[in-house]
């Protein structure tokens, strides 16, 4: 592998993270490639979400290096990571109940919109077209998850399962380089999960780094090209869904009970 290829995508090298005396992540190195859907799995408390939060900048890793397309992200706060092209969803739906569905999605464009504070109060011509364009993009993102019909519904009357898709649209609308999904199927019923799988398969693109933390094995096995397994803060296996399925160690710590 050449150096240039190595710098491509989202990479984490030798990540350590501890809270007080508790070691949450130990020496985790993972490379997330564009065009791949990468799954992060592991039993509860394995460090999946902590690792995820290191990638988004909400946690600061004690040591190790995270980079996106060769740009080091250490010490870069979440707002700046957003400008570099990292977008995420949350384990618990994190939308604004006071905004409409499409307005929530429009906020996903915040980092890329140029309109300033003056435009916020005074209808300058530039700001009007900026608002129209943003709305058009947001409706497009909603259409991609099949929700353009409820664009103008207030978010607080929309069902929780649907809100997960709205969050997905918000994360996608800015055409991110890396899309990080934190348990996208949590709280969804089986038919909603199937729809989510189809949607995620549609979204996957050759230049998009997609990372999914998930408990739902059906979803992980169906959409992922590569799966990494964490246990007690350490990476214990990496491979294709088939390889992970047949990995003895993984079966022992994680899949064993589920496969019976």
């Amino acid at each position, binding site marked *: 592998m050449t150096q240039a290829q190595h710098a491509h995508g989202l990479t984490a090298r030798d990540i350590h993270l501890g809270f007080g005396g508790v070691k949450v992540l130990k020496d985790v190195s993972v490379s997330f490639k564009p065009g791949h859907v990468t799954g992060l799995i592991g039993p509860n408390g394995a460090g999946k979400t902590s690792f995820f939060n290191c990638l988004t900048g909400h946690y600061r890793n004690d040591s190790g290096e995270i980079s996106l397309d060769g740009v080091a992200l250490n010490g870069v706060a979440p707002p700046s990571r957003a400008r570099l092209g990292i977008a995420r969803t*949350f384990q618990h739906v994190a939308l604004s109940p006071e905004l409409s569905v499409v307005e929530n999605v429009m906020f996903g464009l*915040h980092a890329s919109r140029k309109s300033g504070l003056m435009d916020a109060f005074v209808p300058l011509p530039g700001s009007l077209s900026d608002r129209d364009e943003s709305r058009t993009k947001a409706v497009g993102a909603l259409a991609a998850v099949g929700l353009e019909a409820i664009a103008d519904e207030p978010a607080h009357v929309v069902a929780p399962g649907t809100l997960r898709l709205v969050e997905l649209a918000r994360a996608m609308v800015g055409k991110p380089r890396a899309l990080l999904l934190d348990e996208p199927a949590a709280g969804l019923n089986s038919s909603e999960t199937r729809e989510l799988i189809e949607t995620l398969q549609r979204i996957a693109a050759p230049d998009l780094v997609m990372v999914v933390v998930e408990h739902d094995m059906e979803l992980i096995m169906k959409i992922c090209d590569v799966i990494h397994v964490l246990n007690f803060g350490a990476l214990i296996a990496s491979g294709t869904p088939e390889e992970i399925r047949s990995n003895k160690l993984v079966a022992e710590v994680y899949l064993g009970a589920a496969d019976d």
Partner: protein
Amino acid sequence: MSDGLITTARSQREFGRPGRLSLGQIEVVAVLIFAALPFWLSNFWTYTLSLTLANAILILSVSFLIRYGGEVSIGQNFFAAGGAYAVAILQTRYGIPFPVGAMVGAAAGVLTGLIFSWPSRNLSGVYLSVATLALGLCVPEILLQWSSLTGGFEGLYVEPNLVPGVASGVQQFYVALAGLGITVIALARFRGSRFGLALLTARYNPKAAEAFGMSLPHVRLLVFAISSGIAGFGGSVLAFASSTVSPNSFSFLTSVYLLVGAVVSLYSTRMIAAVVGGMFITLVPLLMSEYGEIVPIIYGLALFVVIYMANIVVPAAQAAIRRRKARA
């Protein structure tokens, strides 16, 4: 603190969106009727309504802070006093006309708001409110300290001389009405801006706001700068509408009344709501003045009724309607 009121203030969301104008149209008619009132009312009532409108702007500064920032300030009298004295001092000492004074007043509000919010950016909830209380309490002392500039206890007289030849009461009324209109329209526009979306996201999910490019210290500074800017502007308009500025009209109690007005208006940034809040804090003390002592009790009762209706009665009624619809 206002989470329970979200559903009841649903109407406020629709302003400025195509296809749902009915409430906006009602509002336009109400404003037109309101604008014609000076032709019927006595000078006294025109003057009182001018104060109501100016107070409505100040209430919007509190409602904005609660709605967009989730924070309660009881120091808005500080920023309002800044705006009012800017107008009065510029006019009496330098002969500078009101519109310029009002802009200076609003800018002074923004600036002092930023100066206050930077050191307090890591405070929230009760701690922040207490910090604003300190701000509110120091206003009369500051004004009396610099009495050569501020006119001390007696304050300063502001001449309503914007349009020569027009009765001062009429000038005061329309300046106050225009000031409120500008504030409401600017806020309605702000809500749909990328910063409006950012603030309303940060209010409920700070981490989500960060994850999409809005830093949280910026959220805090922005909320305070806008809120105190509105307060400064409102103070300027109040100075013009009341013809006078004095330490008494900007005591800490003023901030408490503004908070009352904000609660009564359900933290809405719509014109009608702000005017209702303004009426509540301007007219109730006036109409009740002969009963003196019981005014605070009336206030307390009215507040209780509003909070009870907004958080319990109305949601229960809405739920009942939804159930009936679901059955049908």
